[in-house]
């Protein structure tokens, strides 16, 4: 720790001698004014100073020197150890007793202060380390924070060797470590025990190696090399260092456990996705297939002649169901892309009006009235035409499905602060306020609705819009129905000259 607790013994004795000298000087100044016994009190001051400042040894030393000096200089006959008046022996005895008791008390106070200060420093250092560790997000940050804290507190060079993915100790390539140090580190790693400098094993290594162990295993090895030559590690420092090491090891363990938990969460999510996908495929794919197969077998059945209109009906069913099947497969593919993060919009400058028009061509509007309003100040926006058309198709599909056949649907595009906002509004059954978030979850379907669907359409919309940096939401339309709206950001609106 800091150097002021480690003044070498000889200089402490010298200092106490100087204190006695100062007392002697003061005594000589007032020798003619005071009785010798009062001058002894001045010497007591020097002993108290020695006891509180330099410890028991110097203090006792100062007491003895003080008695001798007092005898020679202040007790007649002057200049010798001889004493004429025997009552001075009582003075000497009491003086010595008092001086030794004061020495002991002073030294104890001093030692207690030292312990308290050291504890304070230790807890400050530990606090700094744990606070630093509380904010780390990866092993690089643990490494940096720990190295910095240890170096600062122990005035050392720190080496953190971590576990590699092969469960072996990884030695950084950018540092040259002596062969002995390397062996010491490996021994520490294997036996989970300290080696190197200031230990009995590999003691010629310039590093002290300590294992980073927790209940769950070993995470690496901390190597510490003092910057100053020929220093020693006090037991307190050693204890503090071990506490540091324990904290660092726990930080690594936390990181690992968090990563495992995250991994498990992702695995569970993808498992859930796959299960829902499978049940969706088996149900939603089989329904149209059943309709197609049923229609075709009726058409082929020669024992049961059908009227031309019945034949037409069945053939229309086949067409509709095959189209539906194709859309479903497309949705499943899109959802898989969104889910796996493979959705990368191929952006290009495009016209909102054009993409709405294209969606209207491909949507199965079935003669429903769809009113389109595109404000004249809507700029070109950079987006993936096919993906945004898919969003509009799904929103339109939704509006068509959940509103009465004779009710109007409107699409409105207008400029907003950040880009363009497109709304698809219907006058249908509406979405309850508490469901307005959940409708964008995959496989979610409104509980009361009986309409067919995979529950993927809006989830895909959300994935696509968010991949463009936009937002999508559902809100009730005033007077009943739903407004499904999304935004496309246009950070730099492009002006086109002829």
């Amino acid at each position, binding site marked *: 720790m800091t150097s002021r607790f480690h003044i070498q013994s000889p200089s402490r004795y010298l200092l106490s001698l100087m204190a006695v000298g100062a007392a002697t000087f003061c005594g000589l100044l007032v020798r003619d004014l005071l009785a010798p016994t009062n001058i002894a009190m001045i010497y007591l001051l020097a002993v108290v100073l020695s006891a509180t400042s330099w410890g028991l040894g110097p203090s006792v030393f100062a007491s003895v020197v003080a008695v001798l000096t007092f005898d020679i200089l202040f007790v007649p006959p002057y200049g010798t150890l001889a004493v004429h008046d025997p009552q001075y022996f009582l003075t000497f005895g009491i003086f010595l007793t008092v001086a030794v008791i004061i020495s002991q008390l002073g030294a104890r106070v001093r030692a207690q202060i030292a312990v308290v200060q050291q504890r304070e420093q230790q807890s400050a250092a530990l606090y700094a380390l744990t606070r630093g560790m509380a904010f780390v997000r990866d092993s690089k940050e643990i490494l940096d924070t720990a190295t910095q804290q240890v170096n600062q507190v122990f005035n050392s060079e720190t080496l953190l060797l971590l576990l590699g993915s092969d469960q072996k100790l990884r030695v950084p390539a950018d540092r040259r470590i002596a062969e002995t140090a390397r062996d010491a580190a490996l021994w520490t790693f294997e036996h989970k025990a300290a080696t190197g400098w200031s230990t009995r094993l590999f003691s010629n290594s310039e590093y002290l190696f300590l294992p980073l162990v927790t209940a769950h295993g070993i995470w690496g090895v901390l190597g510490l090399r003092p910057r100053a030559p020929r220093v020693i590690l006090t037991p307190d420092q050693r204890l503090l260092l071990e506490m540091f090491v324990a904290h660092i090891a726990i930080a690594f363990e936390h990181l690992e456990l968090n990563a495992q938990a995250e991994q498990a969460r992702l695995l569970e999510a993808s498992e859930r996705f796959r299960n829902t996908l499978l049940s969706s495929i088996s149900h939603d794919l089989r329904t149209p297939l059943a309709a197609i197969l049923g229609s075709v077998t009726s058409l082929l059945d020669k024992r049961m002649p059908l009227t031309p209109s019945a034949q037409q009906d069945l053939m229309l069913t086949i067409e509709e169901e*095959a189209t539906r099947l*194709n859309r479903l497969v*497309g949705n499943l593919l899109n959802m898989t892309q969104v889910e796996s993060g493979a959705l990368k919009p*191929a952006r*290009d*400058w*495009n*016209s909102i*009006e*054009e*993409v*709405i*028009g*294209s969606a*209207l*061509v*491909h949507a199965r509007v079935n003669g429903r009235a769809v009113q*389109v309003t*595109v404000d004249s100040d809507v700029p*070109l926006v950079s987006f*993936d*035409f*096919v993906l945004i*058309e898919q969003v509009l198709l799904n929103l339109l599909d939704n509006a068509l499905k959940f509103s009465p056949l004779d009710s109007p649907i409107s699409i409105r595009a207008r400029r907003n602060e950040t880009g363009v906002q497109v709304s698809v509004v219907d006058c249908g059954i509406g979405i309850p306020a508490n469901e307005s978030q959940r409708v964008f979850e995959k496989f979610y379907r409104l509980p009361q609705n009986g309409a067919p669907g995979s529950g993927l359409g809006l989830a895909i919309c959300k994935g696509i819009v968010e991949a463009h940096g936009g937002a999508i939401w559902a809100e009730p339309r005033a007077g009943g129905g739903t407004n499904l709206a999304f935004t496309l950001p246009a950070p730099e609106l*492009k002006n*086109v000259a*002829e």
Partner: protein
Amino acid sequence: MSLNERARILVVDDESQIRRFLRTSLTAHGFQVFEAATAQAALEQTIVIKPDVIILDLGLPDRDGLAVLRELREWSKIPVIVLSVREREQDKIAALDAGADDYLTKPFGMGELFARIRATLRHMAEPLDEPVFQTGELKVDFARRLVTLAQREIKLTPTEYSILKHLVTYAGKVVTHRQLLRAVWGVQYENESQYLRVHVGNLRRKIENDTARPKYLLTEPGVGYRLRTDEMN
């Protein structure tokens, strides 16, 4: 239509059920149908039977359809319509750039396929010699540089006229953004797609009654534009 009577069509697809239904439908419409299941067979058949149109699947067992297309284009201008399950725009553009005349994604309706076949056949038969082109109520008189909609003259800027003229040249067929940019603005502008969006928007405002539901100038999502012809209805 007299021009596609007995026209010879080579169907190249490794899936026998696709060949079967194409053969049935195309024969019923009066075409002469030939089949090939591999790239090798397709190239051999092309030399022997000299088809009028090739319908080409991209996923062939021995070679990629795009490679076949490129090789074919080295020595032949026979119209090729690509039929594929690859539905990404990049795949469509790649096929069109490699020399395909048109592109259809599986699954498709037969009506669409017939329209594409007719458009390519007509284009081969009469490479825009006619001085007047008409679709619906839209009429373009090249000799007089006059465009009318329901007998009313429409004033187009030189750029708009140039776009329309290029689309008429390939009427019924898809024209990619890049092809249009190159033809109208020049090669150095082939990536300036915003020019095209703005001018197509203006052109639509003049020739379409409802710009959100274009009747003539159709959008091919992510790929390009197509001018509707009467036979597509």
